[in-house]
Structures are given as structure tokens and as C-alpha cells.
């Protein structure tokens, strides 16, 4: 059975870890620590595009079930390796995996990468080489590993991606006007059956702790399209749950949620 949708909303392990790095273009605007805040507009920028790395010391061994990168300048030819080790020793690492870059039908890279794993280590390292990168440096806005919650009843109510284009221009019928182009983003509308207490608690906690402004990572199809069908997103709508006291204690019915992807 294919995996249900997965939700990652706690990034504390990586965001509070001690961070090391191979280089940073400067210590203010392009510092490596930019990987550890919620913004996807301000990146870590390296000095080169060869053998650059960042390393997280989590303080103790932590279970990591997923790893993600958002808003980067990697090309389709980039080599991205996630490594982990019990000690700060990397020859060889205890765990190593190549993270796949995905592209659209035009061959352009999706600026999001989600990878699932199930490993418990203290030290984590991301190693990148992208020798054909036209920028000559590596740039990544957000990188973190996380545990996730997998919905025990899958989302339903015709989950729908809505692709939004915030570009500006005069919309006059039959007329092509000049356009101030902005990065498109997606909205996702879906319903979650809350027939299980655990699922209800997870969703409510997600809303209570992240609110409308702290992003989470949602992946709709972890098995087949972990990167393409994922989004770094916030909850746009208020969370309404019908509290139903019926014969079956703890039947909470169903909530509808609208999420909005953050691309910049």
C-alpha cells in the first residue's frame, strides 16, 4: 500500500543544531545559518560550487525520517549527498545517500527536494558539487531533517492543487500587456478525516504551534513524487473541527484546510 500523506512540522533538531560549513559568501547576508531559519528568500551562499558542505551536530543521536531542501540554485547535474555518522568522522560516513534533483518537462529544476529515510545519528552532513552551475557557487535557502507524521487515514475531499501566479499586469480581454513577473506558488485545499483521536491531535497541534505563519512540509505522494508533490507551506485557513459526541467516543468528523506554498 502506498504511503499516505506525510506532514513534517518540527525542525527543531536541525534548526538548533551546531552548524558547520565549508564556506559562506559572507557572514551576514549569506551566512550558513540562513539554512536554519524559516525564510526561503535569504540563502546560504558558498564560495565555490565544488565539494561544498554543511554539517549539523544534533548534540545526540536523533531519528531523522526525512530531509528537505528549498529554494536553491542547483542544476540538474548537481551531485547532492546526504551523509550521517555517529561520530564526527566521514571516511566513510555511517550513512550516505544521493538525493535526486527533479526537473519539469522543460528540464528546469524544481527548487524543492524532499527525501525520506529512517536513520538515527548525531552528525549529519550535506555535500554538494555542481561544477556546471553558471553562478559558480551553491545557494540554498532552507535545509533540514525532520521526523514526520503520516496520516493514518489519508486526506480526501478531492485534494486540489491550485497554481497561483502573483505576476502583475493589466488584464484586458484580448490584450497582451507587459508583465511584472513573480514566482508562481501553489495552494492546496484538502480535507482530513479526524476519525482517530491521534490524527485529530496531530492536526490541532500543527495549527496551534505553527499557526498561519510558520511553515511545515507536506508531502502528498511520498512513494512516487516525494519532491514534486511536496510543499513548504503554511496554513491559510482557520481550523474548524466539528466536535461530535456520539456513540463512539472521540469522533471528531472532518476538517478542511487550505495551505499556501512559500517560494520566496
Amino acid at each position, binding site marked *: 500500500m502506498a504511503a499516505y500523506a506525510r506532514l513534517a512540522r518540527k525542525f527543531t533538531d536541525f534548526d538548533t543544531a551546531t552548524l558547520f560549513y565549508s564556506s559562506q559568501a559572507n557572514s551576514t547576508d*549569506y551566512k550558513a545559518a540562513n539554512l536554519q531559519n524559516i*525564510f526561503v528568500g*535569504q540563502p546560504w551562499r558558498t564560495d565555490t560550487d565544488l565539494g561544498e558542505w554543511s554539517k549539523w551536530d544534533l548534540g545526540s543521536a536523533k531519528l531523522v525520517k526525512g530531509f528537505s531542501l528549498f529554494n536553491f540554485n542547483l542544476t540538474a547535474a548537481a551531485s547532492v549527498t546526504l551523509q550521517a555518522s555517529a561520530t564526527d568522522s566521514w571516511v566513510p560516513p555511517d550513512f550516505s545517500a544521493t538525493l535526486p534533483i527533479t526537473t519539469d518537462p522543460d528540464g528546469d529544476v524544481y527548487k524543492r527536494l524532499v527525501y525520506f529515510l529512517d536513520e538515527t545519528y548525531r552528525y549529519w552532513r550535506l555535500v554538494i558539487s555542481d561544477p556546471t552551475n553558471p553562478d559558480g557557487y551553491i545557494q540554498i535557502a532552507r535545509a533540514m531533517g525532520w521526523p514526520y507524521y503520516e496520516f493514518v487515514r489519508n486526506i480526501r475531499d478531492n485534494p486540489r492543487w491550485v497554481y497561483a501566479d502573483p505576476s*502583475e499586469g493589466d488584464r484586458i480581454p484580448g490584450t497582451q500587456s507587459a*508583465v511584472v513577473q513573480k514566482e508562481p506558488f501553489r495552494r492546496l485545499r484538502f480535507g482530513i478525516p479526524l476519525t482517530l483521536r491521534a490524527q485529530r491531535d496531530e492536526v490541532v497541534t500543527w495549527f496551534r504551534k505553527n499557526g498561519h505563519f510558520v511553515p511545515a512540509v507536506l508531502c502528498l505522494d511520498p512513494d512516487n513524487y516525494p519532491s514534486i508533490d511536496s510543499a513548504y507551506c503554511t496554513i491559510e485557513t482557520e481550523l474548524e473541527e466539528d466536535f461530535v459526541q456520539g456513540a463512539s467516543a472521540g469522533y471528531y468528523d472532518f476538517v478542511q484546510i487550505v495551505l499556501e506554498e512559500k517560494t520566496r
Partner: protein
Amino acid sequence: MPPDFNLPIADWTLRVKVKLSGSDLYFANEELALDDGTFWKGRLESFSLIQRSAGSWIDPRVITPEATIVFKNINNEIVDLIAQENWANKDVELSVGYSKQAANYQNVFFAKVRLGGREATDTRVTIQLTDMRSADRRTLPQDLIDSTTYPNAETKSLNHPIPWVFGDFTFAVSTTRVPAYQIDHTVNTGGQFIITGGGLKQHESVFLNDVAATYANVNLDAGTFELTQAYNPATDTITVHCQGRTDTGLSTGTLLQTIPDITQDVLESMMGVASAKLDQTAFDAWDAELTIDDYARGIIGNNAQREDSDEVLARLLFEGFGDMIISGTTGQYTPQFRLGDPAASIPTFRTEDLLDQSDGTKQFREHLDDTGLFANVMTGRFDYNPATLVFDDQYNKQDDASIAQYGLRQDRTLDFYWLHQTGGVQVRTQRELFLFSTEPELVDLGIGPQAAALEPTDRFRLVHGKYSEAQASLFQIRDHLVDYGAMHTRPLVGFNMSVLGAGTWTEDAAVTWLTATDDQRNQKGFLTDANGYADTSGSPSEASRRYKYL
């Protein structure tokens, strides 16, 4: 390479740089990581429309545009930054561009944070901007004959501004002389006098009550001399023949006597504008358009009057047939002579470049100048005498063709405080007469990104409606209102310069006078015979002699 403003689709991004003494702050309307290593924080929530103007045709001046920036005050970030260093009167540069290549961005507006122009809430900080001119503005001249510096000055001259004298007031040019003021009655027989605070090129002669007087110890650089004969402050006046300020302020320099040179010196030496803030190429180009007939002379601070630098500059611009802006690209004071120039680099806006209205028509409006400046009888008063405060000469000209055509006689007096030569005054008066004896035409347009980098005094051609491709009508931007968020300029107000092009150029396919419509006769130039008649019928209409004024 500057950005390509003709791109139909681009991720146009607005940037604001706040220049502080310690470091610069970079903001944009979204997070912007550029290849030059700069990062522009996405704290810019909005930027108001910017209206800029070169002033009216008859009153050219550097109009102060105002704008408002709203910052997102996330976690009190902007308030904290302001607390570290007050932003008041700090330089702000607005730029637009696209992509992550820094080379694809261009400055479009140089400004200063307006004093008192700030308000903050928990979520937003609003900053009001004004342009640099407001900080440069001065009351001229700056120095006075004060009792501390000049304890022995004559009473009637106390607190009189120390004038700055420009141009040639020697006897060879005219009998007009420059007043002098006693600053120390204890020196020599008649005391020490000051003519100017800006230095002199030459000191020729001194007159006591219009009679040649004796003097000594001339100091050209200080603008002073000593009278060696008796002087009674209660009844006597002193005037001199001299040449005014030079380009170096020292007598060894070159006399300043063209309006562009004097304008530049007023900005640099009197207002304290750094030379880097002046577009030297543009000043030189303006200078090249004028002749020795356009030599100017005058006094700033005469007759106890201190003047606002705006007024001084406006008068110089008017008499020099120029406009001036602070360039949004360079941040420099940039003058522009007004005559039409059909240079190939001037952009052409065609129908497809005009923004659409909701009903599908174009954002285009043609209208006549309705400021009531029509005049077909001109009197130019010139050769202003700073000692007697009267104009010593005048030049009268009327446009018989215009009077006949409109059945109306409207007169106007032009007072020239700088131009003093008949030839220059005639040309300047005739230009004014030529322009306003018809109905000047303007267009209001809506243009997309193509016009975002243009600014007042820039020129463009228009091909739309009655403005045909062959006609290639030339316009000068007088005003515009730019929305850099949407990359729209609407309206862009253009002045039809073809009326000024008459006699200087015309297109190959131009209609002849006999076949031209009334509108074309008003707006275009024509080839003429030796007597200036464009009408080749053999019994030429007086109305066809319009070329003659240029």
C-alpha cells in the same frame, strides 16, 4: 549592461538602498540575492507613485518630487535600525531591475529621507522621501555684512548680503555699473569697499556719484578696494566697472559669462553642491547650444535682496532656454537645452506601446496647453542696471500672422535679468513668441516598462493617431507619474517639440505649406523661400512666415 526596459515579461523588482554613515541598508519588495554578493531584504512593503516634473514651460524649475516607502517592521527590525542611526536626511537610492544579475538593475530615483517624515507601528514603518534638491536649497547669497565681521561698516550697508557678481560690467560692454558697499570706514580716506563675495576677474574703474573716483589696494579675489578720496555714507554712492566671478574664484581664472557656466557655479560655489553631483556633459552640451550673443551678467544679492536658490536657478534656466532635473539614473543635476534633437537614440512609442484601457482603447490624450500662456506680442526688457534697478533696454516683437489668424492680440513682458545683449534677447524673445503665438500641444500617455527609466526633459517620438510614422513627432517629457511596482508610467505628459523644430529640421515626406492643415501649420516646420515665406503661391500669406523667429 542596464536592464532592457523593452522586455514584455520580466521579474521586475524594486530595490531601496538607505545610505548610512556606517554602512548601507538594502531592501527590496522581495528577498533578492544577487550575483554581486549583495542581499536585499524583502522588507519593502510598498512604494508610492513618484511624480516628477520639469516645471512649466515658462517657469522651468527643479520640482521636488515626494514619495513614501512602507517597510515591513518584522520584530521591530526597522525601528531598531533607525534607533541605531537616525535616517533623517540620509540618501536613499531607488532602483529597478530583474533577475539575479546585479547588472540588470538601474537607479531611477535619488532621494533623501524627509526630516520629520517617519512614522512607525508594530508592523510597519513609513518613510517619506524628498529629493536631494530640498537639502541643497539655500538662501543666496549666504554671507552678510554683519557687525561682528565688519565692525566698521557703514550703517546703511549693515546686514546687506554680500553680492556675487557674474559677467562683464566693464565700460566696453555698457555703461552699467555695479554697486559697492563700505565695510570699513577707518581704512584710507574714503574707506574700504566690497563689490562681491565671489571674487573678480577685473576691476576697471570706480565712480563716486557717477563721477570717476580714485582708489587703491584692489583685491580682486576678495572683491574689495579702498577709496582714496572723501566719502559721505549719508549722501554718496559708489559704483564700479568690473568683470565678475571666474571659474576658479580667483582673478587668474576664466570669466564666467554663459548661463550654463553661471548656473553650474551657483550650484557648486553658492549652494555647495559637490561637482560629482553635476552632469558636466549635460552642462557642456547646453553651453554649446548658446552663442556669444547669449552672454549673461547679473548680481545675486543686489539691492539688499537675498533670494531663494530655486528662484535664482529658475530664472537662469528660463533665460537660457533650458530645463533641469536631478537625474534618477545618476543623481546629478542635469540641464537640457530645449530645442528638438532628432537623434536616433530617442525612443519611439508606437500604438502597441501604449497601455490599454479597460474598454480596449489606448491610454492616449492629446490636448492643447490650457495654462493661458498664449501671447502674440512680446516685450523683452533687458540690460538690467543693478545700480538704478531699471532695465536700460527693451526689444518688442509681435506675430502678425498669429494676430490675424486668431483675431486676438495678447501681450506679455519678459524680464531678462541675465541676458544683456540685443542679439541674445531677440532670439530668446522670438522663441517665446513663436511658441506661444500658437496653441502649444501636449499628450498624456500611459506607457509600460519602456518609459520607466525616462525622466522629465527626456524626449521621445510618438507614432499614434494623427502622429504618423513619417511625421515622427518629437515630444519632451514635462511630467510623469511612475508606478515602479507595476512598471507603468501614467500619465506621461509630453510637450510637442515640433513647434520648436520649425526652421531647424523637417522630415523628407513633409507636406507643403499650401497642402498643410491648420493643425500642421501650427505644429510643423516648412521649407521657405529667401524671405521666409513657406507659401510658394507667388502672393504669400503672411501667416506662412512663421520660420523667421528661429
